[in-house]
C-alpha cells in the first residue's frame, strides 16, 4: 500500500517535471520565434563589431567604421537578423564602388546560399547601369520592378545614397534619397503570394559597395502609408561626405575606364625578376588586383607583384589594371615602386591556385593568390589588432594574417588543431614572415577561411572526459542493477504478503470456523457419551494445532515488520507472537555499532531467525528464548538461543527446516552453526559478511592487499567475505 502510494508520488513528480520542461520548451520556442525579437536593430560598424553578420560571397570587411565589400562578385551577400521577423523596415547609407552594378538591401531573406540570386527574399538596390531604383523578389531566381530615380545626375558610383526598404503584410516599398537631396524616389509592389518573414542583408551585384548606419525597425501600417505618401521628402538628406580618399580617384578612375586601352609594351610579371639590380628599370605589367589592403598586389598568369604606395584610383579586388613603375627585383618576386595604376576594367576576382604548404614554402608562389590547407597550431592578436594564425601542414609551418574588423568573431570561434582551408596572398618577404616561417598568407576577409574539420576527438581533455563518463556510466549501471534487484525482492515480498493475507482470510478463518463448530457439537453432546467427547476433543486439538501452524506460516510470509523495524526488533516481535499465551520469556540483545543492512541480507537473516525461533518453540519446550544480533567490523552475527531440552546432533535430525536455513545462509555467503546438547538448550548462529565501509583506511588496506597478492605474490590473511549476495 505504502509502496503504491510512493509510486504514485513518483509518477506525479515525473509528470510535473515533464510538464515544466514542455512549458519551458514552448516558452523558449515562442521567444525565439517572436517576430519582434532583436528589434529595433542598429549596426555596430562604427565600433568595429560585426560578429552577428554572416557573409555569402564577396570580401566583406569593416573599414573606417563602415562595412565594405570590394569584390565585383555577382550577388555577394551579408546577412543578419531573425528568420521570424515579419513586418519591419531596413535602411542604410549605400555607396557604390562599381560603375556597372548595383548595391542595396535585402529583406525577409531565408534559405540563403552562395550564388547570384540564391536566396528567398526581397532586394532593393541602386543600379548604375540604367540609373534606377530596382526592387525585386529572389527565389533562387529573379523577378523585378524598376523605377528611374528622380535625381538628374542619375545613379552614380562613389556617391552616398540613403536606401530604405519596408515590408508590411504583402506590400513591399523602397525609397532612395541621393546625397544632399531631400527628394526621394519611391517604388512599391504588392506581392499576392508574398514571402512572410526573414532576416535582413546587404547585397551587391557586379560592384563593390560600402554600407553604414544600418537600422532595422518594426513597421506598422502607418509607416507603410507614410513611406508611400512622403516620396517628396525625407527628413534627413544624406550628407555628401564622400570618402575623401576616394573622391580624387573617382573621376580619374571613370575616365581611365572610359578610355581603357592597354600599352603595347607590357611584360609578364615573372620577367620583372630578371631586371637589372644596378640600373633603374621602368616596366609596365598588366594583371588583376588580388589584394588592396594592407598592401596592393597584382597578379597575372606568371606570378604576382607587390606595389607599395601606388598612385592609383580606388581599387577593388578583381579590377584588371595596368601598372607602370620602377622595378626592384627580389629573390622570389619583384616590387614596382613609384607605380601608377590604371584601371582597365572590372572583372570577377581571380580564383586561387590550390597548392600545398610545402609548395608554397619554396617561394615559387610569392605574391600569388593561393589556397592552402593547414592545422591550426596557435592564434594571437598581432600589431594593429590583426589576427595571426599559426598553422602546420606536414613538415612546414606558416602563418596567416587577417585584418582587424570581423576577425574578432573568428578569433573566438576557431579551435586549436582544427583543419583550415585558407585563401590569401602568399608572401615570403621577411617584413611579414620575420624569418619565423617560410611564408605568410595575407587573408582578404573572414570568407577566405573555412574550417574543414574540427579538432580531433582524441585530445587529452576528451579522453579524460570519456573515461570519467565511462566510470559514471558503470557506476550508474551498478546502482541501477541494485535498484532493480531491490525492486525484484520487494515484488517477491509483496507476493508473499498477498499469500499470507489470502491464507489468513481463507485457511485460518476456516480452521477457526471448524473449531467453533466442533466446540458447538461438543457442547451439544451429552456428557455420558465419553467416547464421542474424546473424539471431538481430539478433532478440536487437531484443528487448533492446524490453526496455529497456519498462523505461523502466515507470520512467516508477512514482511510488514521488516519495513518498520530492524531485524532484531522484527525477530523479537515474531518470537513474542509465536509464544503468546505461553510462559516462555523472549529476550533480545544487540551488540556492536548498529548500521543499516542491505535488504536482501536483512530478509535472509529474518527468515533464518524465524525458522530457528519456530523450531525452538515447537520442539525444545524452552522457558527462555534469546535473540542476539552482533555487529562486527566486517560481519554480522545472528544468534537464536534457547534453554530447552536440546538434542543429540545426527544427520537424521537435520530436517527440512535446518536444511532450508543452511541454504538461505549460503545464499548470502554466511556460515551457520548449530550447537546443542541434551538438556543444555540449542544455539543457532549465523555469521554473514557485511559490505565494507568505504573509508580512506579501508581503500588503502585493500590496495595494500592487492599489491601484496599480485605484485609480491603474498596472499594476505583476509575474511572470506566476497559479498557476492550483493550482486
Amino acid at each position, binding site marked *: 500500500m505504502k509502496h503504491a502510494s510512493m509510486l504514485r508520488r513518483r509518477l506525479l513528480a515525473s509528470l510535473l517535471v515533464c510538464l515544466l520542461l514542455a512549458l519551458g520548451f514552448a516558452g523558449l520556442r515562442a521567444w525565439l520565434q517572436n517576430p519582434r525579437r532583436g528589434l529595433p536593430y542598429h549596426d555596430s560598424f562604427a565600433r568595429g563589431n560585426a560578429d552577428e553578420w554572416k557573409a555569402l560571397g564577396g570580401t566583406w570587411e569593416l573599414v573606417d567604421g563602415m562595412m565594405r565589400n570590394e569584390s565585383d562578385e555577382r550577388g555577394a551577400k551579408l546577412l543578419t537578423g531573425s528568420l521570424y521577423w515579419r513586418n519591419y523596415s531596413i535602411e542604410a547609407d549605400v555607396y557604390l564602388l562599381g560603375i556597372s552594378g548595383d548595391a542595396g538591401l535585402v529583406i525577409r531573406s531565408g534559405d540563403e546560399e552562395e550564388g547570384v540570386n540564391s536566396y528567398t527574399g526581397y532586394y532593393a538596390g541602386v543600379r548604375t547601369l540604367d540609373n534606377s531604383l530596382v526592387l525585386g523578389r529572389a527565389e533562387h531566381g529573379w523577378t523585378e520592378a524598376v523605377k528611374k530615380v528622380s535625381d538628374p545626375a542619375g545613379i552614380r558610383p562613389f556617391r552616398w545614397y540613403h536606401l530604405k526598404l519596408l515590408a508590411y503584410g504583402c506590400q513591399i516599398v523602397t525609397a532612395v534619397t541621393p546625397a544632399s537631396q531631400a527628394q526621394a524616389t519611391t517604388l512599391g509592389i504588392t506581392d499576392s503570394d508574398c514571402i512572410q518573414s526573414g532576416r535582413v542583408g546587404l547585397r551587391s551585384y557586379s560592384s563593390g559597395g560600402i554600407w553604414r548606419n544600418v537600422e532595422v525597425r518594426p513597421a506598422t501600417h502607418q509607416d507603410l502609408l507614410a513611406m508611400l505618401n512622403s516620396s517628396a521628402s525625407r527628413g534627413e538628406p544624406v550628407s555628401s561626405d564622400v570618402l575623401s580618399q576616394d573622391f580624387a580617384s573617382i573621376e580619374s578612375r571613370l575616365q581611365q575606364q572610359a578610355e581603357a586601352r592597354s600599352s603595347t609594351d607590357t611584360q609578364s610579371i615573372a620577367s620583372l*625578376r*630578371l631586371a*637589372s*639590380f*644596378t*640600373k633603374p628599370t621602368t616596366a609596365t605589367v598588366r594583371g588583376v588586383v588580388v589584394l588592396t589592403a594592407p598592401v596592393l598586389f597584382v597578379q597575372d598568369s606568371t606570378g604576382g607583384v607587390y606595389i607599395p604606395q601606388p598612385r592609383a584610383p580606388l581599387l577593388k579586388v578583381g579590377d584588371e589594371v595596368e601598372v607602370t613603375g620602377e622595378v626592384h627585383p627580389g*629573390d*622570389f618576386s619583384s616590387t614596382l615602386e613609384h607605380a601608377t595604376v590604371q584601371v582597365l576594367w572590372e572583372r570577377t576576382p581571380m580564383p586561387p591556385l590550390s597548392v600545398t604548404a*610545402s609548395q608554397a*614554402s*619554396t*617561394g615559387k608562389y610569392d605574391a600569388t593568390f593561393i589556397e592552402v590547407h593547414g592545422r591550426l597550431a596557435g592564434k594571437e592578436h598581432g600589431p594593429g589588432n590583426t589576427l595571426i594564425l599559426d598553422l602546420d601542414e606536414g*613538415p*612546414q*609551418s606558416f602563418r596567416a594574417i587577417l585584418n582587424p574588423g570581423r576577425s574578432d568573431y573568428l578569433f573566438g570561434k576557431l579551435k586549436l588543431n582544427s583543419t583550415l582551408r585558407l585563401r590569401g596572398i602568399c608572401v*615570403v618577404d*621577411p617584413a611579414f*614572415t620575420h*624569418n*619565423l*616561417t*617560410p*611564408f605568410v598568407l595575407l587573408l582578404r576577409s573572414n570568407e577566405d577561411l573555412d574550417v574543414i574539420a574540427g579538432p580531433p576527438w582524441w585530445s587529452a581533455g576528451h579522453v579524460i572526459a570519456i573515461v570519467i563518463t565511462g566510470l559514471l556510466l558503470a557506476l550508474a549501471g551498478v546502482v541501477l542493477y541494485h535498484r532493480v534487484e531491490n525492486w525484484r525482492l520487494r515484488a517477491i515480498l509483496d507476493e508473499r504478503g498477498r499469500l499470507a493475507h489470502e491464507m489468513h482470510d481463507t485457511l485460518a478463518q476456516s480452521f477457526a470456523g471448524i473449531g467453533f463448530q466442533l466446540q458447538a457439537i461438543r457442547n451439544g453432546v451429552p456428557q455420558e457419551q465419553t467416547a464421542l467427547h474424546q473424539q471431538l476433543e481430539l478433532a478440536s486439538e487437531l484443528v487448533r494445532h492446524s490453526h496455529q501452524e497456519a498462523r505461523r506460516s502466515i507470520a512467516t510470509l508477512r514482511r510488514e515488520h521488516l519495513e518498520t523495524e530492524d531485524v532484531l526488533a522484527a525477530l523479537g516481535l515474531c518470537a513474542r507472537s509465536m509464544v503468546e499465551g505461553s510462559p516462555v520469556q523472549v529476550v533480545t540483545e544487540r551488540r556492536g555499532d548498529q548500521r543499516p543492512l542491505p535488504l536482501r541480507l536483512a530478509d535472509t537473516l529474518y527468515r533464518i531467525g524465524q525458522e530457528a525461533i519456530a523450531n525452538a518453540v515447537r520442539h525444545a519446550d524452552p522457558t527462555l528464548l534469546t535473540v542476539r544480533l552482533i555487529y562486527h567490523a566486517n560481519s554480522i552475527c545472528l544468534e537464536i538461543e534457547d534453554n530447552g531440552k536440546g538434542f543429540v546432533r545426527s544427520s537424521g535430525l537435520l530436517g527440512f527446516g535446518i536444511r532450508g536455513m543452511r541454504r538461505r545462509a549460503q545464499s548470502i555467503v554466511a556460515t551457520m552453526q548449530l550447537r546443542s546438547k541434551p538438556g543444555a538448550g540449542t544455539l543457532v548462529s549465523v555469521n554473514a559478511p557485511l559490505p565494507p565501509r568505504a573509508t580512506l583506511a579501508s581503500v588503502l588496506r585493500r590496495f595494500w592487499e592487492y599489491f601484496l597478492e599480485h605484485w*609480491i*605474490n*603474498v*596472499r*594476505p*590473511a583476509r575474511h572470506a567475505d566476497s559479498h557476492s549476495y550483493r550482486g
Partner: protein
Amino acid sequence: MNQLGQRGPQCAPRGSRILKACLSIALALCAASCGSRARVTIAVIPQTEGNMIWEAAHVGAESAADHTGASIYWNAPTREDDSEAQIALVDRVANGNYQGLVLAPDQALSLISPVRRVLARGIPTVIISSPLPIPAGGNLSYILNDDRRGGQLAAQRVEELLHGRGTIAVLGIDPDVTGTMIRDRALEEFLSQNAPQIHVAARRMGSFNVPHEQEAAEDILRAHPDLDAVVALMSSSVDGTLSALATSPALRRIKVIGFDVAGLPSFERNPQLDCVIQSDTRAMGQKAIELILARRHGQSAPVLVRIPPQVITAANINSPQIRDMLAQDWTLGHTHWSSIE
C-alpha cells in the same frame, strides 16, 4: 597471519633479487648512456649525393671527426631539387640521437621550419654553403661560401677577358639557392662600377636540370650571337652551356666562366671553359665539424664564417692548393684494414 608468516622467508630473497635486477638495469643504462656520450654523432646533410662537389665536404667532415673520435652520419637527396627528401632527413636528425647537424640547404625557405625544429631540440647546427633566412646565434652558425666574392671574381675575369668592353649573358640564377642570387648581384654591381662598357644582354633563371639549362643556353645564343662570354652560376648551367656551345662551332669564340663544377674541370676537353670559381666544400665540411665540437667543449666559436672560393684555370689546376681542395682522400676514417693471412 600464519599465511604471511609462511610467505615471509620466501619473500626476502625474492625482494633482494628484484633489487639486484633493478640495480643491474640501472647500471646497464648508465653504462649505455655514458658510452653514447663518449661517441658523438654528427649528421652531415649536403645538397645532394648526386654531385661530386659534395664528396669533398664529406672528406673534410670525416677528417675533422677522425681527430676527435666523433662519428659522421652522411646522407643527402639524390637530386639538388629534392627539398622534400632533405626536409625528411633534417626531421630525422631532430627526432634522433644526434649531437650536431651540418646542412647545405637545397632550398632557402622550405628548410626554415625543419631547421627551427632542430634548434628547438637544442642540437647545434651549422649551415654551410648557402644561407637560410634565419639569423645566426645561439645554436645556429653559418659557414658560407663567399658568394659575393665569387661574383666579383667572375666579374674581374670577364673584365680581363673582354678588356672592359663587350656583351655577356648570365645563366643559372636560382632563387632557391640564395648563393646564386648573391653571385649575380655582385657580378652586376662590379661590372657596373668597374666595367660599364660590358653589359648584360640576357639573364636566365636556372635549375638543376642540365637539358633545361642547355635549352636556355641555346635560346640565348640564338638571340644574342654576338655574345662575348657566358657566366654560368650553377654547375648544371655550366654543363648546359658547354653542351650548347659544343653543338655551335661558329660560336667557339664565346668564353664560359662557370661556378662549382663537379670533380676536376676538364679544360682540355672544353677549350671554351675559361675558368671555374669553385666553392671550397672540403673546408666548409671540416670547419663545420670543428665548430660543433668546439661548441660542445664550451669553447667560443664564430657564428658566421665566409670561405672564399678559388678560381681554377688551366694554369693552376695542378697546383697543390687546388689539388688539395678537390682531393677525395678516403684513407681516413675509423676502420683500419689489415691483410688476412
